[in-house]
C-alpha cells in the first residue's frame, strides 16, 4: 500500500463517513468493536468498498504467559477474513491473566522468558491468519527492574524470531521516553527500520504523579509539536510508511481529524522530497 495517511474510524463519525465519503488514505478499526453483528459492522462493510482498511486488535493479549485465548483468536481471524484489510496489527502488551481481561495495554518485563512467550503467541496468530501481523510499541508508565533487554532490542529480536512487522507509534515513543527517562533518539537508533510497516500518531495528556509530570497516551487531542518532530525524524531515518492518526477520547468533529491526517500526509510528502534530495 502507498504511504498515505488515514484515520481511526470511531462510532461518532460512522454515519457521516458513510454519507460524505471524504478523501482519506485508509480507515482503521479496532477488531474487538466489530466481532458482533451490528449496524456499525454493516457500515464498515459498506465503507471498505471505498477505503483500504486496517484492523487493529486491542484484546489478543500477545504478552500473556498463558497463551492466546483460542475462542477470541478464532473470532479475530473470522473478522480479518471477512474484511480483507490492508493491515493487521496488535500491541506489544498483555491484558489477560487467569481468564480475566483488564481492558488495558499492560507492560511486559523485557526478558528472555517474555520474548519466548510473545514470539510463540505471534507465531500462532500469524499462522492462524496466514499473514504478517505488525506489533505496536506500547506507551509505558512503568518498567520492570528485572528486564534484561531494552524495548527496541526486544522488538528487534521479535522481528528476527517471528518475521512480524513493526507499527511505530511516534506518540508512544515520546510518552515512554518521557515517563521512563529514556532518549527517544537512542530508542529509534536500535530499531530494525525495514520491519516498520506503519506509523501511528495521536495526542497525549500531561498528568500529575505524586508531584511529577507523567504523560498519558489518551488519544484525546491534536498531535503535539514534539511528536510531529519525532515523526519527521522517523520518516527521515526509516522512510515514509502508511500513517494513522488516532483520536479516541474527546473525539472532535470529523474535519479536525481529517486535518490532522492531512498534516501527516504533508510530513510524509516532505519526507519523500527530502529523501529524494538526499539520494
Amino acid at each position: 500500500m502507498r504511504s498515505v495517511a488515514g484515520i481511526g474510524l470511531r462510532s461518532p463519525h460512522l454515519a457521516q463517513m458513510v454519507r460524505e465519503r471524504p478523501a482519506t488514505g485508509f480507515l482503521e478499526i479496532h477488531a474487538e468493536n466489530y466481532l458482533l453483528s451490528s449496524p456499525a459492522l454493516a457500515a464498515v462493510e459498506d465503507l471498505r468498498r471505498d477505503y483500504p482498511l486496517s484492523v487493529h486488535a486491542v484484546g489478543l493479549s500477545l504478552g500473556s504467559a498463558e497463551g492466546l485465548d483460542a475462542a477470541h483468536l478464532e473470532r479475530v481471524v473470522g473478522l480479518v477474513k471477512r474484511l480483507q484489510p490492508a493491515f493487521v496489527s496488535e500491541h506489544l502488551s498483555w491484558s489477560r491473566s487467569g481468564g480475566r481481561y483488564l481492558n488495558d495495554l499492560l507492560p511486559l518485563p523485557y526478558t528472555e522468558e517474555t520474548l519466548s512467550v510473545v514470539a510463540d503467541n505471534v507465531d500462532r496468530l500469524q499462522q492462524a491468519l496466514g499473514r504478517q501481523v505488525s506489533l505496536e510499541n506500547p506507551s509505558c508508565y512503568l518498567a520492570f527492574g528485572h528486564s534484561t533487554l531494552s524495548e527496541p532490542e526486544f522488538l528487534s529480536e521479535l522481528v528476527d524470531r517471528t518475521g512480524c512487522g513493526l507499527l511505530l507509534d511516534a506518540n508512544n515513543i515520546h510518552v515512554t521516553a518521557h515517563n521512563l527517562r529514556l532518549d527517544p533518539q537512542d530508542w529509534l537508533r536500535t530499531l530494525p527500520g525495514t520491519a516498520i510497516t506503519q506509523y501511528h500518531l495521536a495526542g497525549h495528556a500531561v498528568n500529575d504523579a505524586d508531584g511529577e509530570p507523567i504523560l498519558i497516551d489518551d488519544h484525546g487531542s491534536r498531535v503535539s509539536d514534539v511528536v510531529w518532530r519525532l515523526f519527521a525524524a522517523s520518516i527521515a531515518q526509516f522512510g515514509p510508511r502508511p500513517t494513522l492518526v488516532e483520536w479516541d477520547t474527546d473525539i472532535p468533529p470529523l474535519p479536525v481529524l481529517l486535518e490532522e491526517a492531512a498534516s501527516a500526509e504533508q510530513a510524509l510528502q516532505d519526507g519523500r522530497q527530502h529523501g529524494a534530495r538526499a539520494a
Partner: protein
Amino acid sequence: MAPGLRELQAALVTQLLSASCGESELPIAGDSIPAAARLRIHRHHVLSSLSKALAGTFCTVHRLVGEDCFKSLSRDFVQAEPPCGPVLAEYGATFPFYLDAHPLARELPYLADVARLDWALNRAFHSPLERPLAGADLAHVPTEELPLQRVRLTAGATVVRSAYPLARIWAACQPDAPEDDVELGVEGARLLVFRRPDDAGFVGLGEGEAAFVSSLVPGCSLEEAAIAAMGVEPGFDLPLAFARLLALGIMLRCSKDDLVTG
C-alpha cells in the same frame, strides 16, 4: 528472585483490581515517581475504561442514577466481576443481578429491571439482521397446516418483564424527556426488545402476546404458542396478535438447524 511472567501477571491483575493500589511487592522500577504512583495509572485506566463501557451499555441506568452514583456502582462491579473476554459489548451480563443485590435496590427497586432492558437492547443491537417471516411466505401454506408451522424469534428478540412501568421509566430517562414523575405501581411491563435495521428498540406486549412470543422457541409450533397465550389471556385474539408480530418482523420460520441446536 524476580517472579516468572505468569506469576507476575496474576499478581498484577490482583493488585490492579484490589480496593486500593498501595505499596507493591512487584519488581517495578521506581524513581522520583514511586512504583505505586505508576501502578495507579493502570488501575485508573482499567476501572475508568470499563466503567465507561458499562455506562455505554447501561445508558438508561446511567441517566437514572447520575454520573457519580454510576461511577461508584460500576467501579465496584468491575472489581467484583471483571470481564472474562475482551469484547466490551459482551461485558455486563451479570450487572442486573449485581444491582438486584445492591443496597440501592431498596431505594430504586426497578433499577435492576432497567438494567435488564438496557442489556436486552444491547444484545439486540449486536445481533445479526435476519430476514423475517412475511405474510407472503405463508401464502402457500394450506390453512389447516398453519397451526403446525414452527416459528422462532429473530436473533436478539426477547421479552423483558417487570413489575414496574419500564417503558415509561425508560422514556423519562431519554435526553429530551419532559421532567414528569413516573407513577410506579400502576402496572408492570412486558416489553418485546428486537433488532431494527439501524438500531434496537422495543414495544409493549399484552399478556397473551408476551406468552405467545415467549413460546416461539425452536421446536414449538404456532398452535402450542397460541395455547400458551390463551392460557394466560382467555380472550387472546390470535389473528390480530399474529398480524402485529408479522408487521414487527420478529419471527422466522425454523430451519432444520434450529431444531437440532434448539
